[in-house]
């Protein structure tokens, strides 16, 4: 079934009801002692004495609405009442290790797509146990029982979940329960459970953790990457400082307020060693990447057919043409609004950690390593995060907070300033790519090769060896993830394709940045496809349509965006459009971006986006993720760049690393295609198509092909 969701729809289940009382309650705010314990039906689901149904979420909600979506899935399958459902978490439990990933984490747009099936089975199992308890009590066949609105009914017998929960909890889990697939909430726009607490200051983020007798810590890290702490002149040390903690590459001051800790640190004379990176610049790092491409030694993680032979045969052939281009993307910072922070209390051999973390397993491992304690003695309280975008997967700030807490006999909250956050990020790695393709005389794409040079997140951050010379993370968004043939290059119909990698390590810390490798691959591939269309003398939309004849799903997404954007029809005077299609995190996204360039200044007027994520569990959350992702994508494409000078990051705050604001936000028109296929991810899906659609629009407007980001450098 194909349908679109009407964006103007503003009635949400939940907000319409005056009795809407569902609130997000985080772990840590556990019920007061002495209250009856909930009946735990399985790791996800328990029933409280008051009849509320508690879902312990397997990962955290960074604002994508994933906790609400999971609660909807649970509610439908269990037969609960929506107003009874509560969400907690994430809880720490081996049952919550992301299927196929091997750790407990929030990343990869996995939350809803990974947990939909396990959660539905858990809910079905819980429902069958409640029925079993009711049937035994009433001496009736299980088949005579129905479940709805938080009650089990059989003839004249009926009982609420709370009444049956203790009996039900005695039964073992049902191995392969029958899933009913009820859809009362799923597919409807449901008001998010976390939102009420976010409009009146009640929402508690990591930075809002308050513990009795808590101290605060500020940190200064070696500004040059690779530099070490040499010494601190403590003669002028403020008496406010409770402890001065020296790490190999940083100094932490602990005081009874953050301002005292920060001020004391600023007044200190701290010496850092010289480093081999002392004179390095972004230009040097780019030169390394280019030199490595010139060297011509590549790993070949992607190969289909024999594109290199086709390319060399086409060179100099009269009836074929070879098109080549070099593309480049910069380092990017995450800039989550809540700076890095972590609160730690160590007493005896017990370590408690309150942290906004995307990497729960990684945090546990880091804590075990630093403290030497066993896992049983480390208690992690994941807090609500003020943005993450991949940065909060890392554990550097957790380790620092533990070290600070080890130095004093009180809980300590470590807070990074924005300057520390910008200068000590794990940046989206800068990459350089050489693209080449062969076109037949009639404009058919016959071979496509992308050679990519840059660092590896796998090697640098995760500490794993490269896989046959390459890093799969760097190739996200190249081949299809939505299971279609052909699928070597997204879903385009080209048999001879290669992706080659020239690993170019760097001293700059690199990490996951929303959509990761796809964030630059989308720009490389979809800009170059546009170049090929123009070389072939074909409209870029028609060029892509011709390549999607065997991929009806991708074609439908492309056509939806083009139709809604009125592609090819007359536009207001001075307006131009660019188009792009991407296939990432299991979802297909097409965007048409309409711009104008009044007085030589870029104005983005309208973005039309179509997404096929299989099915939308909560359509309004899908719309919100498209709207927000497009703003972040526009910001990165137009403005954002981290520079390295003298071995350190040049930028330091929002005034020199500018991110998009309200005034620059265009109209964003979202269309959801319900293909009914496997669930795709949503949180990262909007990003990769933004930069190429925008650069392609600029080409349409000015004839200027922009091959390096940010675009502002060229306007």
């Amino acid at each position, binding site marked *: 079934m194909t349908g679109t969701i009407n964006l103007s729809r503003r009635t949400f289940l939940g907000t319409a009801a005056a009795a809407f009382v569902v609130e997000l309650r985080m772990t840590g705010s556990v019920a007061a002692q002495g209250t009856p314990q909930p009946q735990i039906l399985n790791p996800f689901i328990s029933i409280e004495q008051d009849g509320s149904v508690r879902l312990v979420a397997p990962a955290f909600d960074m604002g994508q609405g994933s906790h609400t979506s999971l609660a909807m899935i649970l509610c439908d399958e269990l037969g609960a009442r929506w107003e009874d459902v509560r969400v907690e978490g994430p809880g720490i439990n081996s049952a919550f290790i992301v299927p196929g990933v091997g750790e407990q984490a929030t990343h990869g747009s996995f939350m809803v797509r990974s947990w939909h099936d396990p959660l539905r089975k858990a809910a079905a199992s819980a429902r069958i146990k409640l029925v079993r308890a009711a049937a035994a009590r009433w001496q009736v066949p299980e088949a005579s029982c129905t479940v709805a609105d938080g009650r089990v009914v059989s003839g004249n017998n009926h009982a609420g979940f709370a009444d049956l929960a203790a009996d039900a909890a005695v039964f073992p889990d049902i191995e392969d329960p029958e899933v009913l697939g009820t859809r009362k909430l799923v597919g409807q726009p449901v008001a998010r459970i976390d939102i009420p607490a976010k409009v009146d200051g009640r929402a508690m983020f990591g930075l809002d953790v308050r513990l009795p007798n808590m101290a*605060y810590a500020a940190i200064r890290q070696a500004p040059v990457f690779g530099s070490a702490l040499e010494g601190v002149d403590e003669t002028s040390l403020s008496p406010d400082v409770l402890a001065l903690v020296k790490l190999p590459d940083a100094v932490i001051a602990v005081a009874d307020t953050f301002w005292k800790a920060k001020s004391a640190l600023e007044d200190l004379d701290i010496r850092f060693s010289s480093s081999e990176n002392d004179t390095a610049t972004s230009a040097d790092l780019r030169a390394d990447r280019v030199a490595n491409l010139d060297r011509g030694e590549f790993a070949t993680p992607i190969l289909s057919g024999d594109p290199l032979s086709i390319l060399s045969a086409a060179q100099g052939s009269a009836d074929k043409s070879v098109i080549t281009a070099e593309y480049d993307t910069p380092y990017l910072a995450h800039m989550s609004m809540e700076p890095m922070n972590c609160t730690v209390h160590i007493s005896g051999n017990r370590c408690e950690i309150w942290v906004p973390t995307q990497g729960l397993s990684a945090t546990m491992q880091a804590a075990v390593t630093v403290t030497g304690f066993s896992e049983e003695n480390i208690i992690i309280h994941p807090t609500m995060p003020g943005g993450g975008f991949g940065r909060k997967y890392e554990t550097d700030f957790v380790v620092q907070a533990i070290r600070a807490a080890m130095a004093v006999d009180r809980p300590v909250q470590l807070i990074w300033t924005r300057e520390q956050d910008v200068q000590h990020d794990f940046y989206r790695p800068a990459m350089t790519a050489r693209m080449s393709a062969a076109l037949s005389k009639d404009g058919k794409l016959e071979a496509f090769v992308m050679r990519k040079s840059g660092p590896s997140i796998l090697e640098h951050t995760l500490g794993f060896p490269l896989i046959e010379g390459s890093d799969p993370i760097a190739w996200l968004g190249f081949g299809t993830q939505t299971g279609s043939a052909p699928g070597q290059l997204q879903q385009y119909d080209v048999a001879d394709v290669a992706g080659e990698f020239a690993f170019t390590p760097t001293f700059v810390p690199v990490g996951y940045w929303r959509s990761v490798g796809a964030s630059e691959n989308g720009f490389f591939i979809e800009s170059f496809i546009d170049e090929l269309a123009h070389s072939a003398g074909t409209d870029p939309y028609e060029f892509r349509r011709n390549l999607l004849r065997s991929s009806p799903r991708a074609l439908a997404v492309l056509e939806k965006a083009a139709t809604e954007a009125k592609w090819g029809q007359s536009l207001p005077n001075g307006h131009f459009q660019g188009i792009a299609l991407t296939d990432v995190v299991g979802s297909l996204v097409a965007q048409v971006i309409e711009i104008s360039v009044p007085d030589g200044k870029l104005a983005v007027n309208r973005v039309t986006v179509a997404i096929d994520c299989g099915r939308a569990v909560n359509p309004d959350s899908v719309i919100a993720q498209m709207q927000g992702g497009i703003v972040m994508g526009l910001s990165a494409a137009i403005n954002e760049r981290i520079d390295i000078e003298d071995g350190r990051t040049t930028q330091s705050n929002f005034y020199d690393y500018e991110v998009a*604001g309200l005034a620059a936000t265009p109209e964003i028109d979202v269309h959801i295609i319900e293909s009914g296929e496997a669930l795709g991810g949503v949180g990262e899906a909007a990003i990769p198509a933004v930069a190429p659609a925008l650069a392609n629009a600029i080409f349409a407007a000015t004839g200027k092909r922009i091959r390096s980001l940010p675009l502002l450098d060229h306007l």
Partner: protein
Amino acid sequence: MVELNVNGIAHSVDAAPETPLLWVLRENLGKTGTKFGCGAGVCGACTVHLDGEAVRSCQVPLADAEGAEIKTIEGLSSGNGDLTKLQQSWIDLQVPQCGYCQSGMIMAAAALLKATPKPTDDDIDAAMTNICRCGTYSRVRAAIHRAAGTE
């Protein structure tokens, strides 16, 4: 000791007069709804009202706040669990994502509506310079119009 009036309640605060109001609100008074984002007056996460004007509390020394009427997100509504029309619009249009910037965003919007009850898009562009990394701006604009009846 510095005397502060926050959300209509008098407090005596033991902090150095140069300490930014932001940290006093968060640490001395437990008003954690006001957020730290940049410490440079750029992002707006720490926006509060000082005598009815939106200010960035990371740039206001404690001494300058003495004697003023300070209002934080916790004091925007009457405190009985009811919400202002603006906050209700925020829920109706499902504005927040991660939510971290939203206290400051709502305080800036409340000051805008007080000064300009029927704002145009240009008024909103000029007044709403707070940063939201989740990119909730389309809904921020719509929620302000909804609260103002200028949809």
